[in-house]
């Protein structure tokens, strides 16, 4: 039996009919055709599917679409400004070579924003441990960690 869901995705109201078993990531990718959010595993280990649900990082493969009913979702497509200006986290990933193949990248960036929001000024060790749930096979994480620390400082300065 299909169930109606309504939510806000990247600032736009969206709705759809989903099966009860539909995961949030399937709703985002297959119903909304927002394919920036990726599926990299079946066990909620890799973090390629991280989005923000009401401003908090969430693995969208771990949540049913119906559980997101009424919530505000931000995906990688909704992070840059309307005029195309990159979010400081996206810019920092570019400046620090925080991506190679780009597959884990959307999840990493969304997680990075969450880390910067929750733990402003986090040191390197903290950032590395906070990335426990995100796997990258290309970069050795070096550029990712540098980018999160750098963008965190930029975001912090913008807040104060």
């Amino acid at each position, binding site marked *: 039996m299909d169930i109606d869901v309504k939510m806000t995705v990247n600032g736009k109201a969206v709705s759809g009919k989903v099966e009860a078993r539909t995961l949030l990531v399937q709703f985002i990718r297959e119903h909304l055709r927002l*394919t920036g959010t990726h599926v990299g595993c079946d066990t909620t280990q890799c973090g390629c599917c991280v989005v923000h649900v009401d401003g908090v990082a969430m693995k969208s493969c771990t949540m049913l679409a119906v559980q997101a009913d009424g919530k505000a979702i931000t995906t990688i497509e909704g992070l840059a400004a309307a005029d195309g200006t990159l979010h400081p986290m996206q810019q920092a*990933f570019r400046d620090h070579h925080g991506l190679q*193949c780009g*597959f884990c*990248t959307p999840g990493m960036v969304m997680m990075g924003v969450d880390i910067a929001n929750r733990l402003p000024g986090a040191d*390197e060790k903290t950032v590395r441990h906070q990335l426990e749930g995100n796997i990258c096979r290309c970069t050795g*994480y*070096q550029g990712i960690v540098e980018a999160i620390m750098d963008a965190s400082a930029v975001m912090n300065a913008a807040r104060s």
Partner: protein
Amino acid sequence: MGEFGIGQPVRRKEDVRLLTGGGEFTDDINLEAQVYAAFVRSPHANAKITAIDTLAARSMDGVIAVYTGQDLVDAGMGVMINDASYTNRSGKPMNKPSRRIMPVDQTRFVGECLAMVIADTPAQARDAAEAVEIDYDVLPAIASTAHGLDKDAPHVWPEFGENLVVHWEYGDQADVEAKLAASHTRVRVDLVNNRLIVSPMEPRSAAAEYDAATGSLTVYTPSQGGRRLQMTLARALLKMAPEKVRIISRDTGGGFGIRSKMYPETAMVAFAARALARPVKWRGDRSETFVSDYHGRDQINIAEMGLDANGRASVLKVETLLNVGAYLSENGVRLPMEGGGRIIPCVYDIPNFYFSVKPMFTNTICTDTYRGAGRPEANYIMERLMDAGAKALGLSREEIRRRNFITQEQMPYKTHLGFTIDSGDFDGTMQMALDAAKWDSFEARRAESAARGKLRGIGLSTFIEGAGSRPVEGMRMRFEEDGHVTLFAGTYSHGQGHATVYAQLVNEFLGVDFDKVKLIDGDTATSPETSNGTFGSRSSMVGGMGVKRASEAIIAKGRKIAAHLLQTDAERVVFEGGVFRAQSSSVTLAEVAAASRDAKKIPEGMALGLDESVVFENDVENFPNGAHVCELEIDPETGMLEILNYVAVDDCGVVLNPFIVHGQVYGGVLQGVGQALTENVVYDADGQLLSASYMDYGMPRAAHMPMIEALFNVVPAKTNELGVKGAGEAGACGAPPAILSAVGDALSRLGVSHIDMPLTPERVWRAIQEASIVKAA
């Protein structure tokens, strides 16, 4: 050299698209009216298939078709190709089974595809796959490399009467053994080079559509370049004309060696799209990729080295067992000989060498190329031997290496297996690493750790690579009317940043704005006819030289046109910075490109256009090398290990973009760290894969590393005009032995003499406990 030329740390062109969700990975591609594939996989490592009943599955909601191995045979599907050819010294050729896309009467590893279901939705396809009933007569299986050649081991291919693929040998065994026996000091290492799951982050997937009107098939799939996949799929499997098969990889989420191969699932998705004349799509689960992607490494090496009293090694014997899995993959069986064999005995000059390789079949998925592909294994053997030699003779680890390095005076240096190392400063590179890592002041840091109850160790590795294999590759350059330049490459960037680096080269050679150069790759419809793809750290040389050759041809043509426009002789025209000059007059490349389209503006008899298509061909590979130093601390109470400092010095020749090459180093090192510390494939005795998800298989995380200090010792390659040496795989060669050297250093005072990868806390803790029991006794 401008802001965007060779050697500049230019930021990547690729990034904005990938950072904003604009990537186009295979699962992001949706074809009109597509249907979905799901596979039935073998739950047994070795079993006769006695019956397959698809009736229930066929009658389920949404199911369009179900195919078994017999259906593919009946449809005329070909078999997977393997052109390896090795011979035993007795003259007996290697054992060579053929691999069907799906077997008909016997399955030989867990995860092997036995049936394919096509349905309207992915969920319907999966549900129906579960309803396919297969009867098995389960047979004993063998998965272990250590026991695969035992007399009582079950035979994967009973018709061969053995699991041995071939016994390949190099050198004179009796002579080498006599010289070992006569050596002043003889050291031996017994090593396990652990099997790894390559695990690019994008799961394997495929989507295909068939145009019945034209008889043409388009297949979207992650790859490392489509030309070879196109040839295999068209000629060997589907029996179609290659020009009717198009392979497209828009974005590919990592490759590391295993994506340059054709897989059964890809071929079946293509087959179904053709058979049904409907687009078919499949995205593998992570667990499917764990059981059916080719694995890496999986060798056992027993190696002995004989040294004189001064620590000079003159004799080496290496015996390698290699687990190739249930079939012969494209390259798996070659790796010790044609991968590691290019370089072994690596950076050392050891005149007497006997090398024995015994590849074996087991009931596991095949092994094949994984970052380094035989070279990490070869370097690991040599580095463990050097550390053992240093210990036996009471020499420092750096000194024994220094005494055995191939020197610059000996180059070009011919390796045992016939390759020629053109350049390298092994001693200088090692010294840079030792200095950067503050090697000489280490003992103070060890004492500081000891005061806190921790065991600190420092380790060293030196290594060499053979990069740029199959050095033949096409490149096409086209001038657009709006002033842009488009490159069409058969190399394929799946994370390496080719769009950026090739644009730097066009900027360097032709003075075209970096922003005006566009790369099109990953499409067999536009890539050069002659193409092998991207693997083996080859694209800097073969792709880079392709850009150079095309640029040279364009300049030569451009000078003629410029001379015509400037009313002078071509010999008087000089090209520099994008401008053709003859004395005081000049014309830009863009103007020449525009003029080249107008028959009235070019010399008589000259063809229209400046576009160029070239094939770069080289006789030889290149030999990147380096030295790593790792410093770490072990908690003896828990066996937990923390890397505190890591220095990587690379000689990858001329560095085209240090920003990107550093990224290659960091990534390669972490994969090496994964092999050394956390990653291990475990099959149980029945051939069940126990490490079949990210919950069971230890992928390295961000917290496993500190920041790596990456440095270059630039010794330009003499064998290509760019002076480049491939940078992609070095990190994975250097890291495992550096880490093992450091752990050996930390634990040797406790009496721990041997430990194998991966160095999990449990393994380290056990080694410490066993050593202390031995000491107490």
